[in-house]
């Protein structure tokens, strides 16, 4: 079911946390709310499920306006960061709780619990208590409980934050599989760009209570609308360099990078270049000189920081090979068609 937030405003006491946000999540879509800690992701999520009341704006599920309905009447499934399982009930009763509230008969409840337990792959755990489960299993139970009464939308607040690295990888694909199999409209809140990019159809990147950019993951990575977006996505992060357009080149210090043909008529004067680490290295020529100031071996790849004469640092990532030493002077190039250009205020050119 489509979810539509219009002109949504939320204030706590007198501080405005969300200011006039518009957000549409399409039917069956998984949307990531991505952003740094404190930018208002959870606030948005808790407003959608009715825990917080809106100070302004409207919320629709499909054609139904739910802005002023209490949580109980919204039909939203929520998975909390700490899973919030009911510790005194076994897993079966945990999952059955939303159905018991609806006063369904016991055979229907048993059937639905069994179905959903099979979907999330936990049929053998039904008689255990939450405390006897691992983090990943608790997560599956929380998903099952949120999904069992077929909600209109599923909301996940940092669902992977409490898991260790290996489980996180596993649950990432599991949550996506379950979302696709049920075809439910979902919103995933996370501060981890990798989660957002790998699990979701679209990403809404937030900053200070506003959506800065809303696009598909690859589009957001390749076509960021400003320096904040460019800097938030990508690990190791993009490097920014102040430069001047000089004829057919961007010049910074003694270094030059050719202006890509498509850019020529859009740029001029002083600007900032955004260079992703995978677009800087020996394979792109030898127009940029600097000293290696940091080396990190990541197994499959080597990570270098190159400090230019004027003190600017550009990061580079390369397939592991002959390792260069700290302090060595290198002349590398920049892939000019992949350079991102921003004006001095940070907006994309």
């Amino acid at each position, binding site marked *: 079911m489509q979810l539509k937030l219009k002109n949504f405003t939320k204030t706590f006491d007198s501080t405005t946390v969300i200011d006039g946000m518009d957000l549409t999540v399409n039917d069956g879509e998984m949307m990531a709310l991505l952003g740094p800690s404190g930018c208002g992701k959870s606030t948005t999520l*808790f407003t959608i*499920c*009715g*825990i917080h009341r809106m100070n302004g704006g409207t919320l629709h599920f499909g054609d139904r306006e739910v802005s002023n309905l209490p*949580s*109980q009447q919204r039909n*939203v*499934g*929520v998975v*909390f*960061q*700490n899973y*919030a399982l*009911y*510790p*005194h009930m076994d897993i079966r009763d945990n999952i059955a*709780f*939303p159905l018991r*509230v*609806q006063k369904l008969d016991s055979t229907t409840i048993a059937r639905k619990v069994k179905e959903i337990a099979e979907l999330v792959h936990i049929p053998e755990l039904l008689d255990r208590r939450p405390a006897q489960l691992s983090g990943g299993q608790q997560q599956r139970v929380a998903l099952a*409980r*949120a999904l069992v*009464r077929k909600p209109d939308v599923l909301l996940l607040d940092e669902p992977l934050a409490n898991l260790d690295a290996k489980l996180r990888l596993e649950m990432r694909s599991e949550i996506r599989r379950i979302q696709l199999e049920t075809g439910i409209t979902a919103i995933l809140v996370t501060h981890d760009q990798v989660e957002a990019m790998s699990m979701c159809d679209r990403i809404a990147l937030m900053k200070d209570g506003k959506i800065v950019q809303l696009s598909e993951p690859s589009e957001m990575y390749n076509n960021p609308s400003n320096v904040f977006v460019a800097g938030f996505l990508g690990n190791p992060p993009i490097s920014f360099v102040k430069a001047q357009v000089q004829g057919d080149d961007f010049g910074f210090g003694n270094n030059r990078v050719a202006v890509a043909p498509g850019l020529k008529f859009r740029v001029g004067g002083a600007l900032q270049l955004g260079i992703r680490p995978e677009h800087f290295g020996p394979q792109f020529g030898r127009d940029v000189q600097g000293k290696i100031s940091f080396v990190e071996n990541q197994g499959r790849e080597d990570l270098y920081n190159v400090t230019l004469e004027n003190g600017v640092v550009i990061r580079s990532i390369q397939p592991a090979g002959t390792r260069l030493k700290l302090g060595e002077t290198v002349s590398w190039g920049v892939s000019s068609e992949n350079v991102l250009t921003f004006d001095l205020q940070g907006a994309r050119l």
Partner: protein
Amino acid sequence: MTANFRSMPVIALLTIVSLPLVIMYVFTLVDTFTNTEPGSLVPNEFTTEHWRFLWSPDVGRGSVWVATVNTFIFASTTALIVTSISVTAAYALSRLDFPARRFFLSGIIILHAFPTITLIIAIFLILQWLGLFDTLIGVIIVKTALELPFGIWIMKGFYDTVPWEIEMAGVQDGASRFMVWHKLVLPQVQPGLAALLIFSFLSGWSEFLLPLVLAPGSDSQVLSTYLAYFLLDDSLEVDFNLFKSVGLFYAVPVILIYLVFQKKLMNIYGGGSKG
């Protein structure tokens, strides 16, 4: 074995320190069933005469059985009322954002710390004005009121340990606030509830000052005042062995309750349930 061995000095020290107490208890028990020549330590005859207060009503002031029933009614009623009010009031204080919440919270702490004795005259006057002076109901009301701040504070501590996400999850699952409280939150503060119930029962059982001042008559007396009569009444010659017997009779239920419920009582000091 080695662990036991290393704790031997500690155990020895504890034994020495607590020996006087143990000896006192043993002598109390022995004294209630024996007579001892003046000047001697060793009893010379077995007797049940010190327990005569159980069957002859003219020994103390009024019947010990009436006092026992009164004590039981007094302690259990206050415990029930304190617990049932605390369990709802504490939830409100822990979770609901109502006007003057901070005022109530600090009020409770202050009331809890307030020495009862300073209030006693005002309470006495109020009870007399209400016509509840020298009645069991009067003392019950006063004791409940004085015990409530403690109960509410303890229960609030238990509620505070329940993660709010559990309640929100319940609300999302479609349950009403009352159902969430009843089905999801209450089971998790249940250890606190049991502990508070026992604790306030014991507190009521051992209450002395309030019954002494507010229910001095023999019809409404409780065991503590019944016991004190043997010491306080000038016209009687103090019979220490009788006093010890009555004291033992008064203490036995408390000891039993402690033995049976010590695990549950520990919860109050442990600070809440594990989520």
